[in-house]
């Protein structure tokens, strides 16, 4: 069974259900007319972004040079308007000593194009209404 981690609702009323955390399928979501992006959080709550010009969604993961595992560490959902980005980062593993623990949501605002780690741009933006 796939645990859908987000839902996109379009102005037409149609919906797109995302894939799993290991394969979110954001690329398959239509790139126009997005009215809202809802992310399903642990414990059953929903984080809903709406009224943005653009939306983005991606997963953060860490691959150590030693060991086979890929550790999925964060879920990101972003909305952009007026050349600024609101970024919501949900922590899934406690990678940041003493600062962020599992379940924390970090909200930050960036100029558009500076929202990625290292203050670099991100790919995958899709258009709102």
């Amino acid at each position: 069974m796939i645990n859908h981690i987000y839902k996109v609702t379009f102005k037409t009323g149609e919906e797109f259900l995302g894939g799993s955390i290991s394969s979110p399928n954001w690329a398959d979501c239509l790139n126009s007319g997005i009215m809202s992006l809802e992310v399903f959080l642990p414990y059953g709550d929903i984080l809903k972004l709406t009224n943005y010009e653009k939306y983005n969604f991606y997963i953060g993961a860490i691959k150590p040079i030693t060991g086979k595992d890929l550790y999925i560490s964060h879920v990101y959902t972003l909305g952009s308007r007026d050349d600024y980005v609101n970024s919501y980062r949900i922590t899934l593993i406690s990678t940041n000593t003493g600062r962020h623990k599992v379940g924390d949501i970090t909200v930050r605002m960036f100029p558009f194009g500076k929202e990625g780690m290292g203050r670099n741009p991100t790919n995958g933006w899709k258009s709102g209404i």
Partner: protein
Amino acid sequence: MAAPSITFLWNSSQNDIANGGSDSGDSNWKVFDPLNDKIAFLGNGTNDQDSNESKDVFSIPDSGSKEVPRQFVNDYSEGKWDRIWLAGSDADDGGGGNYRYVFGVYVDGTTSSAPILQAWDSTSLESYDLEVLGGGTPANSMLEVISTKDSAPGVEWTGTPMAGDGGLNSVALGSSAITSPTMLYWNQRLVIPSTANAFAVEPVLCLYITYS
């Protein structure tokens, strides 16, 4: 889209040349065995292809700071120290220089943002408390990394002190998302201050990636 496949490699040769063999390596580049191989910083008494049953350790300097002069991969399958000839800087008595193609990672897939190199105490990815990583103060980390994706670093390069995932103490391997399978490159060095305590520790380098 699923997470990209990630393969770490090192340049085992004395040729400053890009990897031509994607995730399989080539005559210069070897694939890092993530379960058994380890990177080691050693003294001048250890030579390429020496047996890994012994080693020459680096001595903490009496004053100032010195770069550990030689880096190796403890090649588990060969039972030998495989010298990473081009690793390090020429500053602080290091044994490297202006070399671009030294360490690499092949990212097979696409990402949402530029991959980031990080360093942690262990694969639990929870802390950076080891003295070699600054003992909780990332700016004091002895491990320095520089991205060489776009150019060579210069002869006496100094890198970014590595510890945890803070923006000032991790290194973006490029400035944009990965849109097709790509090799990314870096160089690294270990700079030991005279105030350091003796250590034999195994911090972990990691690549932080994003996918959608």
